[in-house]
């Protein structure tokens, strides 16, 4: 079982405690009062969630946010709040302030501005171009911001909390996997015409050059596009037999639909945001594309336990599912739910460290972020890399490659875990 990979990292005893404890950089704890700043009212820490709740990318934003809600409800209810070493009545409850960004950078900026003076940190900022749109303000406001995006640029940022291996690593790991299998592909890529798509391009150019593969076609689309036949035709006419999708779920569905209609069946390899379980439909109303997707689509994500893996080394997955059943019965198993849940674990680890360092101001949160080097997720993902410098934050760059399998709870079955030197060697840091 691929969950065993997580064992190397997880010496998990009681996950509920392990999850909130970073691997420790020694910090001199004082017993003075805990300093608080913006967004901490009494014993409540307010955190912003900037995420698409409407529009096509709400397919990602909603379950991801649900992951945050469920995890922090667990923190508030079961752990009694943030500050495990404090008496229960002195612990801090977490309150999430959720704002709809519609996946539009300018709305993202507007929502950030509306709430920046009322929250301690941004627990979730979804989207690469969207988060880049607030990057200067994040720096000025010293706003610790959890990026729900796997851009490699976050490792260089003082206030941006990454959430796993970047899109570039996903592409590099997939290409290394092809190389290892002695495939000599004609590569293509369909990518979103923005900073997210640019990372797909960086990944394919870097990895193809390194292993000697040829890129035969590239095609981009705008987030407002609804028709993708032209992009698919570009791939088909160039003879691309392996096509990277640096896309979001709605375009993915339409691209695959157009390709099936054109009887074009390359190996599609999607970056993690290309996928959502809803693409396969529901058991009583499955998508007609399920056979095509099962045959031709791989999805590359951060490496971690599958939804069904709840045994040794995957205790985090077990606890997540218990919490899901307790707090969000109507939430279907979903990759993005677990992505959000893991991100919330990372933010929680920083908050715990900040309480331990007795400083919940913006400066205090940033220092706590530096002081937490890794976050053990109980096998849900390879440990998150945090820390004081870029290289420390790059952390682990392993990926899991999945195929579509509707028998699995999140409709994904493990093909391989790949932790390639190629992905590691990319120059993420200056």
């Amino acid at each position, binding site marked *: 079982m691929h969950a065993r990979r997580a064992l190397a990292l997880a010496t998990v005893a009681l996950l509920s405690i392990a999850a909130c404890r970073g691997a420790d950089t020694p910090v001199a704890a004082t017993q003075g009062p805990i300093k608080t700043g913006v967004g901490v009212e009494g014993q409540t820490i307010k955190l912003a969630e900037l995420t698409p709740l409407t529009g096509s990318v709400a397919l990602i934003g909603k379950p991801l946010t649900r992951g945050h809600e469920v995890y922090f409800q667990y923190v508030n209810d079961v752990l009694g709040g943030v500050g495990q070493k404090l008496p229960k009545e002195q612990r801090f409850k977490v309150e999430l302030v959720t*704002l*709809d960004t519609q996946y539009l950078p300018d709305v993202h900026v*507007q*929502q950030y*501005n509306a*709430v920046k003076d009322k929250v301690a940190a941004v627990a979730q900022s979804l989207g690469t171009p969207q988060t880049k749109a607030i990057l200067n303000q994040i720096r000025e406001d010293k706003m610790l911001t959890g990026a729900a995006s796997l851009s490699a640029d976050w490792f260089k940022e003082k206030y941006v909390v990454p959430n796993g291996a970047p899109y570039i690593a996903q592409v590099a790991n997939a290409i290394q996997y092809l190389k290892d299998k002695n495939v000599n592909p004609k590569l293509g890529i369909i990518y979103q015409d923005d900073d997210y798509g640019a990372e797909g391009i960086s990944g394919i150019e870097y990895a193809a050059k390194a292993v000697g593969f040829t890129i035969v076609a590239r095609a981009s689309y705008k987030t407002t596009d*609804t028709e993708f036949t032209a992009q698919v035709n570009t791939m088909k006419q160039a003879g691309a037999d392996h096509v990277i999708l640096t896309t979001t779920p709605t375009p993915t569905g339409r691209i695959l639909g157009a390709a099936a209609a054109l009887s074009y069946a390359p190996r599609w390899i999607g970056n993690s945001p290309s996928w959502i379980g809803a693409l396969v439909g529901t058991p009583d109303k499955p998508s007609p594309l399920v056979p095509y997707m099962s045959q031709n689509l791989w999805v590359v994500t951060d490496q971690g336990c599958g939804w069904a893996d709840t045994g040794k080394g995957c205790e985090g997955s077990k606890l997540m599912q218990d919490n899901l059943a307790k707090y969000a019965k109507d939430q279907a198993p979903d990759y993005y739910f677990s992505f959000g849940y893991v991100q919330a674990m990372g933010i929680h680890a920083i908050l715990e460290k900040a309480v331990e360092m007795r400083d919940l101001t913006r400066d205090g949160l940033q220092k706590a972020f530096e002081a937490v080097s890794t976050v053990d997720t109980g096998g849900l993902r390879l440990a998150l890399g945090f820390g004081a410098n870029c290289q420390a934050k790059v952390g682990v760059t392993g990926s899991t490659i999945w195929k579509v399998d509707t028998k699995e709870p999140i409709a994904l079955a493990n093909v391989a875990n790949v932790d390639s030197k190629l992905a590691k060697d990319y120059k993420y840091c200056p």
Partner: protein
Amino acid sequence: MLVHKALFALMVVLAAACSSPSALPPIATQAPPSGPPAGFTAGSYEGTTPGGAAYKIEAPTSWNGTLLLYSHGYRAEGTANPAIDAGDATTAKYLLDHGFALAGTSYSSMGWALEQAFKDQIDALEVFAQKVGKPSRTIAWGHSLGGIITAGLVQLRPERFAGALPMCGVLAGGIGAWDAALDGEFVATTLLAPAATSGPLRSPSIQLVKISDPTANGAAAKAMYAEAQKTPAGRARLSLAAALSAEPGWFSIATAEPAAADFVSQQVNQELWQEQVSAPFAFNFRAELEKRAGGNPSTNVGVDYARLLDASPWKAEVTALYQAAGLSVQDDLGALARAPRISADASARDYLKRFITFDGNLKIPVLTLHTSSDGLVPVEGEYAYGQTVARATRSTLLRQLYVRRAGHCAFTPAETVTALDALIKRLDTGAWPDLAPAGLTSSAQQLGADYNVFSVGGKVVPVGAAFFKFDPAPFPRMFDAYVH
């Protein structure tokens, strides 16, 4: 001034759903933490507030100490303006029988009477205290314009209330609501009126703002919509106007909701909203607003209609109808982009900001209720209110409920009572009860046949409770205290 009959049918909430229940259903409403004041005076009272509004007060002998202050909907100048203290008689009787006291006024002004209503409704609380006694808590509730008044009352005077239930309220706020209406007017007249050289579409007299003859203007607009509906090109353009001003594709409870891909039926329904409901409001009643605001408060300067269409849930319908008509939606969006825009008068806009723009800074629990397909007060306004409250970091005090139904304020007494019951549970326990739609629907159904009714075409018919999980699309013209 005459108000269109269909408009009355939609705006007079549940007036016909008045069958008296033979036995009270066994739903328990909670007693407030402290009961009524000692020596209160039960009874029914009518009179006039110091500000000149008619009031109506009813306090049962078994009063539990909670007062429900009702704010009624829009009433056009020249129509009757009685005081009422509930939206319909069935619900009023239920509440009185369960120990609640009721109060409400006519407002001392008609039309967009927020400025007066805020004062009149507080005056009614003073009268109630004098006549009956001091309530242990007061809950504000109301329909439509009374929904915006309810939300406004608890923003302006939170110390007077324990909670609020705005129903089908104009919760996008005054600026947002009237700007969105202007978009519908602008798109329709820009694309439809210049197309004809004669007949009803050739209507140079149609005024979007600064309306000189409101009745004639409303009639001309109505004719414009009806005429456009006769051709594929007209229907395509009407669908664009509908999409950009959030007109829904389901008009009446008497017909089934069109299927998701039934664009033809959706547009027919949208046109009914445009012609029968929005036309009088946007092209006629706007004049009353301008009079009280001292000018035009609305603007569409800088609005990117292509972008609004991208965000609209009706974009697929618009695309399909333009294709069917052999027209280019891009050409029409280009025409809209080039058309001269309308500026607001600053002082009039400021008036509408004051009456009222929401700051979201809730101090007390608020529960809202809206139908999914409301062409007069689009459900997207709930999105605006929810986001405004979130920006103020007060979302823990807000919950929003939805009923899957066509119509403005088309709630059954059972749904209304169920929503009110949920709010009271929140006030009594300090925590929101389970608001899962299936549970609420079941609770409403258990109230029995007498309460699960609605008036359709003047006849009271059985209507099943229909709470459902719903996420409204973004309000097209967001305007709130944090971004402006």
